[in-house]
């Protein structure tokens, strides 16, 4: 019996439907300033806070909410480059960030943390910002590795964003090229320490003073 090679079925080209990233970016609207909390919520908490003895209620509520937040930080599954390998090692059983309450989740709608692990190119930056904007508040970002911190060895490349903090606000910078899982784990612990000081009634907490 003669065996014939299968005739390749060429699918219709889908790239003719492809819209350019900058075209998508036009649909993307900037998040208005100060929508972290609704004004009603803020005025109610401010009212309780200024009531005699009311600060006890707000601080206890704050610490309870912050405990809940820091105990279930779910990072969105978002790997960009070689740092993502170290990030995967951190997620895996040897270093196991799940004991800290971190579950890598494959949906930005259910995530609280974005670990930017790798080089951010100018073409990727709108998509990164869109994913970050899809995440519900409160949300945090960890810049992992030299490339995401400052552009790293590709800083003078024509296509590299010189630091992901030009695109999204970053809470913790993890140095290294790439950072070993221990470094990322330390950064995540610093982030949890920072979340402990997150205030419900105010703005985002200042970056943690301790760096080691």
């Amino acid at each position, binding site marked *: 019996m003669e065996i014939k090679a299968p005739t390749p079925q060429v699918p219709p080209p889908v790239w003719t439907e492809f819209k*350019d*990233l*900058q075209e998508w970016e036009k649909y993307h609207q900037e998040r208005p300033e100060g929508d972290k909390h609704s004004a009603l919520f803020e005025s109610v908490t401010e009212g309780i806070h200024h009531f005699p003895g009311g600060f006890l209620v707000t601080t206890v509520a704050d610490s309870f909410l912050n405990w809940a937040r820091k105990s279930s930080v779910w990072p969105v599954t978002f790997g960009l480059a070689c740092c993502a390998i170290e990030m995967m090692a951190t997620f895996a059983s040897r270093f196991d960030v799940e004991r800290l309450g971190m579950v890598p989740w494959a949906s930005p709608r259910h995530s609280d943390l974005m670990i930017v692990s790798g080089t951010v190119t*100018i*073409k990727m*930056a709108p998509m990164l910002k869109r994913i970050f904007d899809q995440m519900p508040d409160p949300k945090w970002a960890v810049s992992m590795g030299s490339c995401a911190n400052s552009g790293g060895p590709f800083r*003078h*490349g*024509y*296509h*590299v*964003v*010189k630091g992901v903090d*030009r*695109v999204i606000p970053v809470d913790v910078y993890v140095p290294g090229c790439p950072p070993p899982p221990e470094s990322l784990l330390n950064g995540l612990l610093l982030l949890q320490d920072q979340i402990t000081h997150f205030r419900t009634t105010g703005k985002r907490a200042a970056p943690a003073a301790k760096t080691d």
Partner: protein
Amino acid sequence: MSAEGDGSLLTVTVPPDRWAELGRFAKETLGCLYFNFLTAVDWKDQGLEVVARVENLDVGLAVTMKSRLGAGQSACASLVPLYPGADWMERECFDMFGIRFEGHPDLRRILLPQDWEGHPLLKSYAVDTAHPPYR
């Protein structure tokens, strides 16, 4: 006529108006059916040079084709009618060096965004050019 050779490497330099003719000779006479790569070199004052390699995998013959476009010139004949595999490589070459391949069916940018200004692998491209909004 058939091509002979055993692991041999051949480099041919032609003027740009005979570029497509050389490609046709390499494909039809030398039997180089495999289009390996296409790129370009920026020699600053002396202009751009297009480099392509085609191979005859049966006899192990590799033909490197070169062509100096001349100072200030950016037009070159396209090899897509001969080698369909040259399609995306010529688009990339256009993207990075700004070489206009005449006869290419769909000469658009392939790696960079469509509204990118300039061709970044040219020596005259300023690397630290501001590219709003991200740098």
